[in-house]
């Protein structure tokens, strides 16, 4: 593709197409926010009903991995942001390097979350059900906590995997992006950052609130 700005026939100009695409991703993200809404709402609601059991559950989580993972995701959003700035300033090569770095951080998150943390959670018998290891009066509520935990982290992980696929696609298409034409880079970046924001809500719900008291 050349640098001549092309556009689909329903748009008046390439700029018109760009603006429209960016509005589209924002609206999609609004929809995604409401998609995650019921988890957050139900989680907080269930915790209010049985706070001590939720605290007992939360204390079994691995705070260190949680903090490292949060740092990884924030760093990956930052890396993506630098990648976006790179293409805006004309360096395609630097964009690819930063996007690869963002991917690596995302992969590291997935490895820690599912390869290390989930495995140890499962070994500790924290998956809700007959073999659930927490006993006593907090057993039921702690199971509910871990139902939320496994459900929401799996869903967040799936979103992250989709995000990785999209970033990989941007990298593979890098040759067609120029300082003036790089709307897909921006759009995928918005999605990539959105996944981190979801995590920034999950992080306190999983690791912090239960440890506060």
């Amino acid at each position, binding site marked *: 593709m050349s640098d001549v700005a092309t556009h689909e026939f329903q748009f008046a100009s390439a700029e018109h197409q760009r603006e*429209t695409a960016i509005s589209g991703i924002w609206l999609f993200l609004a929809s995604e926010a409401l998609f995650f809404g019921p988890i957050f709402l139900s989680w907080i609601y269930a915790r209010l009903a049985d706070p001590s059991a939720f605290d007992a559950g939360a204390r079994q989580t691995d705070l260190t991995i949680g903090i490292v993972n949060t740092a990884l995701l924030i760093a990956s959003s930052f890396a993506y942001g630098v990648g976006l700035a790179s293409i805006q300033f004309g360096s395609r090569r630097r964009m690819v390097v930063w996007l690869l770095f963002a991917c690596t951080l995302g992969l590291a998150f997935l490895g820690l979350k599912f390869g290390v943390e989930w495995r140890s959670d499962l070994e500790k018998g924290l998956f809700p059900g007959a073999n659930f290891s927490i006993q006593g009066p907090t057993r039921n509520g702690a199971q509910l906590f871990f*139902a939320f935990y496994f*459900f929401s982290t799996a869903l967040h992980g799936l979103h992250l995997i989709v995000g990785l696929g999209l970033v990989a696609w941007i990298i593979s298409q890098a040759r067609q992006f120029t300082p003036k034409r790089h709307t897909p880079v921006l759009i995928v970046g918005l999605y990539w950052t959105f996944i981190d924001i979801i995590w920034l809500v999950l992080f306190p719900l999983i690791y912090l609130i239960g440890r506060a008291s």
Partner: protein
Amino acid sequence: MTHSAAQVSYLDDGHTLRSWLLSTDHKRIAILYIVAITFFFFVGGVAAFLIRYNLISPNGLIGSAETYNRLFSMHGILMVWFFLVPAAPVTLGNFLTPLMLGARDLAFPRLNLLSWYLFVIAGFIALYAVVGGGVDTGWTFYTPLTSFYSKGHVVAAVVAIFIAGFSSIATGLNFIISIHKLRAPGMTWYKMPVFLWSLYATSVILVLATPVLAMTLLLLAFERIFGIGVFDPAIGGDPLLFQHLFWFYSHPAVYVMILPGFGVISEIIPAFSRKELFGYKFVVWASIAIAVIGFLVWGHHMFVAGTSLYSAIVFSLLSYMVAVPSAIKVFNWIGTMHKGYIRFDAPMLYAIGFIGLFTTGGLTGLFVAALAADVHLTQTYFVVAHFHYVMVGGMVSAYFAGFHFWWPKMTGRLYPEMWGRVGAILIFVGFNLTFFPQFLLGYLGMPRRYFAYPQHFEALNLLSSASAMVLAVGYLLPLGYFAWSLLYGERASANPWGATGLEWTTPSPPPTENFAVTPTVTQPPYQYEHAETVSHE
């Protein structure tokens, strides 16, 4: 009229199956949707037929309460998610939005095609769930029945609705962005046809409420698969939470079903009264108000579910508030007809029928919105009759009205007008005779979803079932004469009704690119007393 020889009608732009199944043309996708939607309407209709068949006799003619449960679940699931919610937006909305905007296509044509594939995949999964094995939960999937006790393909049904939801979100997103970004030069917000405003209000609900349902159903599937979950009271979860989340979507979804119908009626009444729409801004803002207030009334589905009295009173009050914008619309339509030159063509007959049926459905809605009355009426046939007046009497009439109105534009053919009128009258009469007895049954205390009933309800049930046959003929009739008109119908001109609106300025059927030259809008819509609305530069 701009009709150059170089322009190829969208119907002639490729005749292969591939040119249809991979088309990103909004008009072709609308046709694909019409085929799919009509199919699901008739499958859901067969289930309705069997329900009415069973209720002919007090002891039930089907012989098994289990089968009956599966039938009304099938009817509800297919009709709600595979007909009522998507029907008007994906068919009429898809076809008309770019034409009314003066645009060449929707903002995201490939997303539009993707939404059709998602819909069809979801539809087949739903068919597998409700036919091959069945679901006995009703369309509402209440826990803990659904998560722990129900037999049948609950997870498949839930997955189907989940996927169909994303099809809806894609469609809604496409409409909102298109309306914001693709309006023709000169088309300010207040120069837009009301149909686009109502589609906009509809789309806001689709984009913001559907994801809530999607997540709720995922949580439900998780609970059913792993036997442990957030709605299970045994571990501190809350079944009422499911109902709150479910109705947070499913009540606004009711407005998804009816709002496009309001839009259709607002186009037809001025065209067949030869008058400007009365109170344009009121009609427009009533749509927006309904969409907004619609998000705040879900609790009226839970008056007897054990919610607090205080919240029930608030929800009751808020529910009354929805009646205000709805009534404004009805008065505006009647005001438009007042002193107009009214023509009783089929679209207008459907539209007038709509006003009557919707008003009845709306007013009986006030009965069930009233906290005290609802305690008596809830879970009875009164509720069934109420929402069928709005959904079937209202929405389906408006859908048929729109179909007759825009059929010449879509196909380039005129349907036989006499048969159209016969169909409209049959549907109106058949509908009332089918569902009015159900108001009486419900008021007398016949519960809904029961396989059998006491002897003294037999006469009214018999009347309802017999009249359902009239209604069925009314629904089958258009299928026949529309098909006939495709082959033998008279060729339609660009504007057979003499209506205003950009869609009537382009040939019937429109060329692939819709407009040879992007139109410029200089006047407000519905200028029926005056000359041309639109000029081509």
